[in-house]
């Protein structure tokens, strides 16, 4: 068996392993807000965790309703200071409030995963696993007075082998419109899903699987990246980052975000953070034509009563750059000789588009990535060479509301990896979701490697939030 075939088989195995083991996704529905406003999940979600236009505005407004009034908040908050204290600052502490009830919510997911893959010898391996439960997510979310919001998510995940993992997936505080016109300037600090991915990060998708070709591609490899990330590998884009971010909405329809984050480093696909002296930077700018404004503004717009429908087009450009100098990845050449590798300059440029046409929402991203890879001696860390690699990834997804309880989604993903000897990764993801109740949903999801018909998973998922 020649080297290329061995590498290809390894890559396919990695891909399928990623599909099977990496499919535990954070859940984004937060019933704490249902309690606060005494409103249904469907006020903000098309099918949780996917947000409808109003839910997107609610999120971007720092978890305040557009033009929110006191009477909309059914759970009266606990005052931490009378409003008149604002005039006394700094003689007294600036007033604020706490959520009326403890702002916790729980999401639980159970799944049956039927998976097929090829092993190293080319034989088909099939698993059919009840993952009851697969994960549970404890959320804390709410507002602290007019200018602060918070969001936290603690995840407990049970692995197929019976072990379990825990992770603080999100822990952040938001500063909402501290100065300037409303919605224009906001800040977020903490471990967060950057607004760079607004609309396509896994916590805002109706599907069970995230967009692996964007978020779990590993650009590190002897000849450049070959496939999806395993443990202690790099990633194309960190799905979550430890970051400080500024974002806002101008003139109701222009969205921007800029952020600074810890660099990408070894640690697996879900949140890889390096520890060198550098910082990563990212930015995104979007414009939305038609439909509800990104801040919830509806001036001059006729919207249908079905709150998941609108006719709009949102387009944006995004970029991410960083320097992984001194962040070492373990790699090996074709003969298995170990080396270290550093990604000394990684750049990602992308375009985003989302088109709503009534019940249909089609959206996607095209991303181009470049990496300046330094190959180092495994022991002395002497630089051996430096190469520039590039890759391209894109996906397109169509979500359709048949009726509010019944929704379907189809996604195609394509990844041209940096290693020229490896064929492009192409995957199909098809989902049928049924909202049994507003907070209980069942999904049937089929995920297939289009290069190899025996690499697929069929997931039956039950999720509920309370």
């Amino acid at each position, binding site marked *: 068996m020649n080297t290329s075939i061995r590498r290809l088989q390894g890559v396919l195995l990695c891909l399928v392993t990623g599909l099977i083991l990496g499919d535990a996704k954070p859940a984004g529905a937060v019933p704490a807000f249902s309690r606060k406003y005494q409103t249904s999940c469907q006020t903000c979600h098309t099918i949780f965790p996917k947000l409808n236009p109003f839910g997107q505005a609610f999120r971007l407004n720092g978890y305040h309703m557009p033009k929110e*009034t*006191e*009477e909309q908040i059914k759970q*009266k908050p*606990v*005052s*931490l*200071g*009378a*409003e*008149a*204290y604002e*005039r*006394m600052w700094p003689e*007294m*502490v600036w*007033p604020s409030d706490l959520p009326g009830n403890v702002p916790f919510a729980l999401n639980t997911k159970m799944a049956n995963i039927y998976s097929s893959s090829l092993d190293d010898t080319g034989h088909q391996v099939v698993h059919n696993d009840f993952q009851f439960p697969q994960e549970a997510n404890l959320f804390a979310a709410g507002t602290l007075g007019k200018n602060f919001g918070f969001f936290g998510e603690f995840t407990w995940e049970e692995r197929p082998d019976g072990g379990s993992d825990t992770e603080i997936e999100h822990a952040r505080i938001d500063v909402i419109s501290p100065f300037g016109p409303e919605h224009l300037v906001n800040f977020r600090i903490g471990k967060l899903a950057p607004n760079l991915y607004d609309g396509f990060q896994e916590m805002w998708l109706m599907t069970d699987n995230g967009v692996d070709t964007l978020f779990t591609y590993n650009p590190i490899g002897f000849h450049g990246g070959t496939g999806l990330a395993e443990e202690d590998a790099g990633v194309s884009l960190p799905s979550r980052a430890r970051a400080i971010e500024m974002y806002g909405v101008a003139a109701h329809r222009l969205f921007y975000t800029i952020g600074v984050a810890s660099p990408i480093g070894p640690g697996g696909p879900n949140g890889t953070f390096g520890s060198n002296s550098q910082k990563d930077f990212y930015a995104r700018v979007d414009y939305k034509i038609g439909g509800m404004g990104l801040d919830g503004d509806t001036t001059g717009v006729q919207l249908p009563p079905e709150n998941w429908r609108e006719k709009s087009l949102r387009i944006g450009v995004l970029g991410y750059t960083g320097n992984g100098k001194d962040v070492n990845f373990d790699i090996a050449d074709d003969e298995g000789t170990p080396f270290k590798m550093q990604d000394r300059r990684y750049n990602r440029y992308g375009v985003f588009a989302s088109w709503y046409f009534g019940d249909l929402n089609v959206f996607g991203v095209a991303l181009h990535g470049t990496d300046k890879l330094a190959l180092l001696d495994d022991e002395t860390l002497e630089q051996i060479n430096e190469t520039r690699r590039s890759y391209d990834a894109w996906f397109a997804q169509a979500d359709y509301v048949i009726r509010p309880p019944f929704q379907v989604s189809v996604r195609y993903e394509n990844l041209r990896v940096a290693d020229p000897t490896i064929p492009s990764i192409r995957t199909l993801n098809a989902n049928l979701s049924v909202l049994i109740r507003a907070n209980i949903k069942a999904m049937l999801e089929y995920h297939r490697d289009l290069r190899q018909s025996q690499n697929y998973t069929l997931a039956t998922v039950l999720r509920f939030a309370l």
Partner: protein
Amino acid sequence: MKRALCIALFTLMTAPLSAGDLHGKVACKGVRDSSDAVVYVTAVAGKTFPAPKEHEKIDQANLVFSPHVLPVLVGTTVDFLNSDAVLHNVFSPDACAEKFNLGTWPKGQIRSYQFKKECVAALLCKVHPEMEAFVVAVPTPYFAVTKADGNYRIPDVPDGTYTVKVWHPKLRATQKSVTVSGATAAEFEIAK
């Protein structure tokens, strides 16, 4: 004849001016209910109103000022009673109330302040920062504060045309001209 003339003159001089109730509703938009709006007549031409001798009272019970909003005639002295088993304080950050600070005092005791000017005075307690109340000192005795349904009633307003103002702790104030003739209704709507 002389006697009859005297009786007629006396009757004319002592007869009350015709007056009526000014009543109606204030619709408060964007807040939980329509309580705590102060409706008052800003001036009655040619008339001044001496400070009343009777004191008004605001209680501090269960860590809450009660009432939350108290309209008074300018010159009124307000007594602040502490009904709680914990120390309370009352102060105002507003210059129109001389930024008074009455210190702290225990259960059962009263401290007082006279509101000498027209004023909207926020009242705060340094011991319990969430406590808040308002004294609205107005220039005429014709005032009322709305109930939760927004209804108000100002009795015995002399017939005439007046500017009537509405003030609320959280909403933008408004005013309009109202002609009172006997029982008269006036409706208002206020918002942020």
